[in-house]
C-alpha cells in the first residue's frame, strides 16, 4: 500500500493501551514458560534415563566398589540432609511469592526485600547442593547409576545458578535504576521460574532419594 491508500482511512487507535501486561497477556511470560517447557522435557528425559538404568542393573542398588573407598553392599543415599534441603526449598517459595505480589502491587520496598531474600535462599541452596552430591555415596564415573544421579543434581544446580544470575541482574537494576513498569514484569517472571525450580526439585528429590529405597 502506498501513502495515498492510507489517507482518510478508518483507524484503530491503540495509544491508550498500556505498555506492560502480566501473566498470560505478556510475551515474556509466555517466552519464559515455553523455555520451561523445554527444561521440563529435559528433566523428563533424565527421569526416563534413571528408570532405564534401574532396568539394566540387576542388583539394585549396585554395591560400591570404588578403589580407595570402603566397599558398601547397599549404598542407599542419605535421607536426612536432602530432606532438610527440600524443606528449605519449600520455605523459599515464601519470599518468591512475596516478590511476585510486591511487583504487582508496585510495592518498591517489598520488591527490594523480596529480591534480597530470594537471592539469599538461592545462595544457601547452592551451597547445600554442593554437599548434597556427597549424600549419593557414588561418583559420577563409578557406574551408570552414579552418572545419572549426578547429572540430575547437576542439571538442577545449573538452574539454581541461572536463577541466581537472573536475580542479581534485576537486583542491580532495581537498586541502581529503580523499578519501572517493564522490570515489574521481569520480577513476576523470575518468580515463576523459582516456582518451577522448586516444583521440579520435589519430583527429583523423590526420585533420587526415595527411588533407590522403593524401586
Amino acid at each position, binding site marked *: 500500500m502506498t501513502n495515498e491508500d492510507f489517507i482518510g*482511512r478508518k483507524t484503530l487507535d491503540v495509544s491508550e*493501551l498500556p*505498555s506492560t501486561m502480566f501473566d498470560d497477556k505478556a510475551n515474556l511470560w509466555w517466552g519464559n514458560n515455553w523455555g520451561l517447557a523445554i527444561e521440563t522435557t529435559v528433566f523428563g528425559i533424565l527421569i526416563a534415563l534413571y528408570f532405564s538404568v534401574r532396568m539394566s542393573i540387576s542388583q539394585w542398588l549396585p554395591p560400591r566398589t570404588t578403589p580407595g573407598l570402603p566397599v558398601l553392599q547397599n549404598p542407599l543415599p542419605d535421607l536426612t540432609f536432602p530432606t532438610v534441603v527440600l524443606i528449605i526449598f519449600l520455605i523459599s517459595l515464601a519470599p518468591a511469592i512475596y516478590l511476585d505480589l510486591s511487583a504487582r502491587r508496585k510495592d518498591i520496598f517489598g520488591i527490594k526485600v523480596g529480591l534480597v531474600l530470594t537471592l539469599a535462599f538461592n545462595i544457601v541452596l547452592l551451597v547445600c547442593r554442593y554437599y548434597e552430591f556427597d549424600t549419593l555415596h557414588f561418583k*559420577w*564415573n563409578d557406574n551408570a547409576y552414579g552418572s545419572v544421579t549426578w547429572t540430575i543434581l547437576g542439571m538442577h544446580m545449573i538452574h539454581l545458578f541461572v536463577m541466581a544470575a537472573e536475580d542479581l541482574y534485576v537486583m542491580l537494576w532495581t537498586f541502581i535504576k529503580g523499578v519501572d513498569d*517493564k522490570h515489574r514484569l521481569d520480577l513476576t517472571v523470575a518468580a515463576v521460574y523459582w516456582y518451577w525450580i522448586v516444583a521440579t526439585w520435589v519430583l527429583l528429590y523423590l526420585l533420587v532419594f526415595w527411588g533407590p529405597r522403593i524401586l
Partner: protein
Amino acid sequence: MKDADLSKKQSSSLTEARINDELRALESTWSDKPGIIGWLSTTDHKRVGFRMVFTAFCFFTFGGILAGLMRLQLSLPGNNFLGPDMYNQIFTTHGSTMMFLFAVPVMEGMGIYFVPLMIGTRTLAFPRLNILGYYTYLFGGLLLFFGLLLNIGPDAGWFAYVPLSGPEYGIGKRVDLWSQMVSLTEISALIASTNIIVTVMKLRAPGMSLNRIPLFVWSEVITAVMVIFAMPAVMIGSSLLSMDRLTNVSTHFFNQAEGGDPIMWQHLFWFFGHPEVYIIFIPATGMVSMIITTFSRRKTFGYTALVLTMVATAFIGFGVWVHHMFVTPLPQLGQSIFTASSMLIVVPNGVQIFCWLATLWLGRWNLKTPLVFILGFFGVFVMGGLTGVMLASLPLDTQLHDTYFVVAHFHYVLIGGAVFPLFGAVYYWFPKFCGRMLNEAAGIAHCILFFVGFELVFFPMHILGLIGMPRRVYTYLPETGWGDLNMLASIGAAVMVIATLIFFINAIYSWFWGRVAAADPWGADTLEWSLPSPIPQYAFQYQPVVQGRHAVWEQTADSPVVTGLHINNREVVATSIHDAVPDHRYGVQGPSIMPFVVSVITGAMFVGFMFTPWSLPLGMIALFFGFLGWFWSNSVEHRPPYAPLEDNPVYDDPADYKPAEAAV
C-alpha cells in the same frame, strides 16, 4: 515530533502530512546501525531469516558436493576414488549437514522471515534472541566442516550409534565435533521455536483470530511446538555422549559394563530423530498450502482439516520412533504398537493430500514455476509415503533394514516432501527478498531436470536395496551385479547437479538483473504481499486490521489500520491469544552486539568441552557477564520510555478496553 505527542490519542483521520511525518520517523526507528557492528547486531527478522536461509543453502551446496563425491565413488564396482575412512567421514557429514544444517534451519529461516509479515507485525517477539540463534547455528555448522577439512570429520553416521561413537571405538575428537555441532544447532532451533510461538500467540494483527491464521504460519507454530518437545532428547543425548567420551569425566550412560545401555542412545536419538522428519516436512506442507491457494486462485479447500492434520501428524510423529529400531531386541507387543502407529500417520497425510487436490481441482490454475514444483512434490512425496508404509511393517523392515531401499525411501520423503516445496517457495517469495522475479523458463528447466535427475538417482536404489546392497559401504565387488544401477544413479546425480546449477545461476542473475516485481506479482492472499517488494525494514507503515482468512483478498478500500503506536521507539500492537483483540503496546529492543558476543562465548564453551569439563564453569562465568551486558544495554539504550512507576496505572485486565468497532 515528540513521543508525548504521538502517544496521545489521535484523531481518526490520517492526513497526508501526518502519514509522511510518521513514515520518516518509522524509517529511522527501525533501521539498523551502520557498519560492520550494525551488520553483526541487526535484529531485523527479515535480515536474520534471510541469512539463515542463505547459510542453509550454502550448507546444502556443501552437502550436495559430498553426495556427488559418494556417487562418483559408487559409480563403478571396486572403485578407489575414495578410501573407506574418507567415505565414512563424507557420508556422516553429508547426512548431518542435510538434516541439522540445511533442512531444519532453512525451514526455520523461512518462518523467521515470513511469519511476522504474514501475521501483520513488524518483528518477532524476541528479536535479539533471534540473532543469537542464527550465530549459534552458524558456529555449529562451521565446526562440522572444520573437522571434515582437517580430515578429522565425524565418521559414525549421522545418528552416531554407540558403541561405534563411544569412547571405546570413536577415536580422537571426530564424534565430539559432531555432538557439539548438534548441541549448538539444537540451541538455535529451540530459540527460533520459542520465538515463533510467542510471536504468533501475541503479536498477530488485530482481527487475525485463530481461524484466520495463514496455513504456513500454523505449520511453523506446530513445528515449533514439536521442536520444543523433540530437540531436548538429542541435546541431552549428545551431551551425555560427550560426557561419556571425555577422559576426565568418563560417565557410563551408554556403557553396558557399568549399568549403562547402548540401546538408550538409539531411543534418545530417534525420539528426536523421527519427529525431526515432521519438523522438516510440516513447514513444507505450509508452503504447499500457500502456493496451491495462490496458484489455484481460490480459497483453500478444507482449511480446518489442513490445520488439524498438521496437529495430528505432530502428535502421531512422537509415537513412531521405535520403527527405526526394529532390529534391536524389543518386546513383540512394542513392535506391533509401533508398526500400527507408523501406519496410522498416513491417515492425516492422506487427508492433507486430498484437500490440496480438491483446491487444485476446483481452482483456475496459474501454472508458474512454484506450482510446477508442487506438482513434482506430489509425484515424489506420495511414493516416498508408500514405501514408508512398507517399511512400517516389521517383517519387511527386518529384511530391508540398512539397505539402499531405506536410503531411497527417506530421500523420496525428504527431498520430495521438503526440497521440492522449498524450491517452489523460493520461486514464490523471491520477489519479497530482493524486489525482482526469478526467471520462469529457467525455473521450469530447473524443476524438470531436478525431477528427472532425482528419479534417476533414487528410483534404482529401491531395487538395489531389494537385491541386497547395504548402506554405507564404500565399494562393492563386480560379481554383486549392482554396478549398472549404481552407474545410473550416478548419472542421475549429475543431472541433479546441473539442475541445481541452473537454479543458482538464475538466482544470482535475477537478484541483480531480474524483472522488477510488483508488490503482489502472483495475486496472493497473505499480508506480506500487501507490502512493497523488497520489504522496508519497518515492514508495515500501519499495521493492518485483518478482515478475513485470506487477508489481502478480503481487504477493502476502507479496511482500518492501527495507529497510535510509538514511532520513535520500536513498538507493535500485542493482541489477545484467541481473537486478536489489542491488549497492549509491545516495545521491542533495538539492535545490540551482545547476542553476537554471547554466541561466541557459547561456541567457545562447547568447543572447549571437547577437551576439558572446566570449560563449563568458565563458560558460565563468561556468559554471566555477557548476559549482564545484554540485559543492561537493553535496558539503558534502547528501552522505550516507559512511564515512571508512579504515573502508570495498574492495568492487568484489558476488559475495560473496548477496541474500535472496526476490529470486531
